């Protein structure tokens, strides 16, 4: 059991930030709690519970962009059409099999992103070009990829922002695991934007390859500037297999993960094309 001396539930974000800053390294922010209960580092003696700080909720702006409060639970996200309709259902793909209802009722989007370990959501968010809003001494917005790569420092992750696609766009996600609750051996998230029937932008993200989510530029280039035909999809899938350097562990060889990445990319792109057909 973690040895906790101080437990705070600040009523707003400013107070939460001040408590975190003043506690130095001995404090952790508490979101849903499901990870921290099991893995609270020994140096932590202070918990700052964000549940009363007003950080939950899902909003679709008039421009079609999506804002997700950090304390939004996965259940509430899955129940928000604004989120599950975004990019043709990308987040629905991610969330529908995300743990069990018991987990989804408790775990939060912000807690999950801040935890930044094995993740199905982070590749989906990277494919959706998500930005995070972070409160420190000031408030800053930065791409999720930059946030994940930034040196550690005290901050409160307050919300995620998914920009509106510039035109017809759709995404898809798939994962491979031994059972539904296991961490994925590998996952794939794809988003494609079309302009006059031609791929304007493609983001192909592979997760669990040793990093949380990695874009595959060669696969994206194989799609860009052409219609998303079966041969373009095939070229993208082959570029993923060629460009990936996956990890090898007791569960799967690197070769097998490379194979999965190709299969997953093909499936996701086929799904994206089907969804783009519905959009057009």
């Amino acid at each position, binding site marked *: 059991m973690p040895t906790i001396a101080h437990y705070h539930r600040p009523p707003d974000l400013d107070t939460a930030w001040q408590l975190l800053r003043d506690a130095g390294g001995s404090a952790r922010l508490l979101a849903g709690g499901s990870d921290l209960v099991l893995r609270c580092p020994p140096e932590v003696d202070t918990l700052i519970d964000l549940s009363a700080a007003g950080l939950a909720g899902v909003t679709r702006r008039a421009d079609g962009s999506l804002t997700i409060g950090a304390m939004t639970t996965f259940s509430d996200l899955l129940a928000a059409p604004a989120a599950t309709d975004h990019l043709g259902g990308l987040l629905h793909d991610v969330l529908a099999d995300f743990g069990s209802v018991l*987990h989804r009722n408790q775990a939060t989007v912000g807690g999950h992103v801040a935890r930044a370990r094995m993740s199905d959501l982070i590749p989906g968010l990277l494919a959706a070009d998500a930005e995070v809003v972070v409160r420190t001494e000031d408030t800053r917005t930065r791409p999720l990829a930059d946030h994940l790569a930034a040196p550690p420092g005290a901050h409160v992750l307050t919300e995620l922002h998914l920009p509106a696609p510039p035109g017809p766009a759709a995404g898809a996600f798939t994962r491979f695991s031994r059972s539904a609750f296991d961490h994925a051996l590998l996952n794939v998230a794809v988003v494609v934007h079309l302009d006059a029937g031609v791929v304007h932008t493609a983001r192909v993200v592979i997760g669990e390859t040793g990093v949380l989510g990695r874009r595959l530029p060669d696969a994206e280039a194989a799609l860009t500037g052409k219609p998303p035909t079966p041969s373009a999809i095939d070229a993208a899938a082959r570029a993923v297999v060629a460009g990936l350097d996956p990890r090898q562990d007791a569960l799967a060889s690197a070769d097998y993960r490379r194979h999965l990445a190709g299969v997953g990319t093909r499936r996701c792109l086929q799904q994206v094309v089907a969804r783009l057909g519905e959009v057009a």
Partner: protein
Amino acid sequence: MRIEFELDARSIAVEIDPGESLMTLLRRIGAVSVKDGCARGDCGSCAVRLDGRAVTSCLLFAAQADGRRVQTAAGLADATGGLHPLQRALVDAGGVQCGYCTPGVLMAAMDLLDHDPDPGEQQVRTALAGNLCRCTGYVKIIEGVREAAALLREAEHG
């Protein structure tokens, strides 16, 4: 620290260790329908409802329940011990064998029935995916939950 919360319609005020889990606290104060199965969120036998939503109490700090409403399987029966329709249906369907998973299954199923009064088999399976049962093979539990849904709809509409 001291917290106050509602436990099965009773007001509780109790001194807690801020590092202890809600499951540990509930069992310590006698709410032993909450089972200590895996204590890592895998088995669902410690499930309770927190402000209506079913969660694994082993993965919550007790302090997170401060000011909130906690419901356990022990609160389902009426004052005279008469079983709730969901409990009755689960027993009648043969969905209770050793009984260890039952309190958690009841909490997950109550959460489902609150949101979906007429769930199909797939909806029940999805809702109970976090509750492990090593006796029944799940089929009878699923039948029991769907029968309970029918009973509750009947009671609602007369």
